[in-house]
């Protein structure tokens, strides 16, 4: 068996039509699989974004309802502890207003007179939707649309 014959066979194998066809089919399948994967990821992300969006809508509504309930309860509590209600309760419990000559002032070390109410809490850092990078809230179509619009604008 001489060397030229071996090379001839190898060349024939490489250029065999069925082998080229398989290569084409393989490449085509690879492209289809890649596309399918992109589509799957896209569908998955889109559906999750839609679910998250719907949850945001629901939570926004819940927040509004909770704020209303909170306001209601706060007002009810204020009514129950109003000046007249507290005075009535105190009288019912046997208390009476103190007379000026009954007051005794004691020096309490470290005591400081009551200061006006501070209502605000320290402002909390809030994650704002608009500060999130577009990669996390932009759909593929949105991205394509933006690119097309940008390229049109550039022209």
């Amino acid at each position: 068996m001489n060397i030229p014959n071996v090379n001839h066979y190898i060349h024939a194998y490489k250029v065999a039509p069925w082998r080229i066809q398989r290569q084409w089919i393989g490449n085509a399948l690879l492209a289809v699989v890649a596309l399918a994967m992109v589509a799957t990821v896209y569908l998955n992300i889109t559906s999750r974004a839609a679910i998250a969006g719907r949850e945001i809508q629901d939570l926004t509504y819940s927040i509004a309802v909770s704020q209303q309930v909170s306001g209601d309860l706060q007002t009810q509590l204020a009514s129950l502890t109003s000046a007249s209600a507290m005075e009535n309760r105190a009288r019912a419990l046997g208390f009476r207003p103190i007379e000026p000559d009954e007051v005794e002032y004691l020096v309490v070390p470290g005591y400081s007179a009551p200061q006006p109410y501070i209502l605000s809490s320290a402002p909390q850092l809030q994650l704002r939707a608009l500060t999130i990078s577009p990669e996390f809230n932009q759909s593929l179509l949105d991205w394509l649309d933006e690119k097309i619009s940008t390229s049109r604008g550039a022209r």
Partner: protein
Amino acid sequence: MRQQYARRTQVLVGVMGFIALAIIVQMTRIQNSAEADVFRQQAANYAYELRTFFPNRGEIYDRNGRLLAGNRTVYEIGVDLNTVKDPHAIAYAVSTELGMDYNQIIDVIQNPPEGLSYIVIADFIEAQQALNLQELKKVLQEQAPQGSLGGLTGLQFKSHPQRSYPEDALASNIIGFVNREGRGYYGIEEKYDTLLAGNPVQVLVPTDPNKAFEIPRVPDGTTLILTINRDLQAAAEQILDESLLEYGAQGGTIVVMDPRNGELLANAATRRMDLNQFWNYGAIYDNASEFNPAISKPYEPGSVTKIFTMAAALDSGSVTPGTTYLDTGSILVGGAVIQNWNQEPWGVQDMTGCLQHSLNVCMATISTKMGAGTFYNYMDNFGFGHLTGVDMAGEAAGRLKIPGDEDWYPVDLGTNSFGQGLTATPLQIMMAASSIVNHGRTVIPHALYAMVRDGRQYNVPAQFAGTPISAQTADTLSGMLTVSLETEGSLALVPGYRVAGKTGTAQIPVNGFYDNTKTNASFIGWGPVDDPQFMIYVWLERPSISIWGSETAAPVFGKMAEKTVILLDIPPDLIRQKLVAK
């Protein structure tokens, strides 16, 4: 054989390619057809929905964090005409629960205005009543046969906030009220209406969940913290009510202010209304100035004005505390005779005696000595005739006639010196008197301590309006007023505390003439004198037990001051001075 396969493959590829091409062509054709625009428009119509948001109106608190004005949920009850199943059931249920007319409801449902698909049957319904109807709707739905609708289908409930005042009538003259359209009237509610806001807003909301972050955030109104002390306010109202009975007065006002920074601590008025029932306004008040007389009802204050005449005379160098004069009981000013309150001569008096005995002749003497230019210049600088700038709606400026005005006469120089012929509100007088406490500087009274928005609190600083007198004059006058009260043995004195002050008894003009039997009794005072922490103004209208301020308004001041030092934790002078010395 191989060629046959190749041809079949080519045909298959061709057919598949043709189908794919046809699909693409058809997709392109559909996308660009005339119908596509219609569908796109329909999609656009559903992309956003117009929604009404009801942001909460900002709350109002007192200085210690007690809620004075909040919000509670009420319901709008309406009918969706497209889904109504049984109008009679709805009319019956609603009329029974809400006490409305059955025929009226059925008429509205069966004969709605043209073009409407939703009609409101009732609004501002209590949560419990709405809940009862919702429960009934649910029960009827459960009892309905499988697949059919309940009798109250179409009945809808929309919740929204309504202003609520947990303290009812307490401090009503300061707070004001909000009507059902969400507009503030009087007091803080009107003055800060825009800040408190909370009015319904209609905005477009995206229905696409991917655009959830575009849901607009409608902010609630700004929350306000007032300088008012609720407990002191309640005490002031109680003392005022008791005083009206005790002295037979027709009306009155008590104002408590921190003279160092202008913070109003209490402001009681005779007529008060339950702010939750604002529709009773017309039955309670005859005119707008009665809502809060302390800021909106100018009157001739009488002798309390002598403080400012004396301040002007001391500051201009016209007199000193030791300056004496011979009181003959009358003086002629501008062709008119001015007499003392008892129409008697008081002999030789110094300036402290003038204040102690509240001598009109003395004041007319020193005002004419100063001259109209100097006197009115000082009165103008004290703020008479000007708004104080207090942050409550409905303030009136009062009237100070000056030379050159059509209705000013030379006699006014005399009468104005003891508080007749000019008008001022209690708050104007307090603002003017704050200059004596603050070493010559007048402070602008205010009721807002702080506002809270987006979690941040902005405190309102004290504002000073000017310096009408020097610090030396202020301190001298404060001492004179203290001594004159103590020497007189005034009913305004507070055991354990040194206070300074002045009574006022002003005749009330009736049909152009002063009526000797009808007076306004007033008292302004502050304490403790060496470290003033409160200033109190008392005004009793037409007291019938006694016409004199010294016998009516002064003891009311005393009572109020006693309560104030307890509620503000101000120790007696001796203890406080020991504490300071440590």
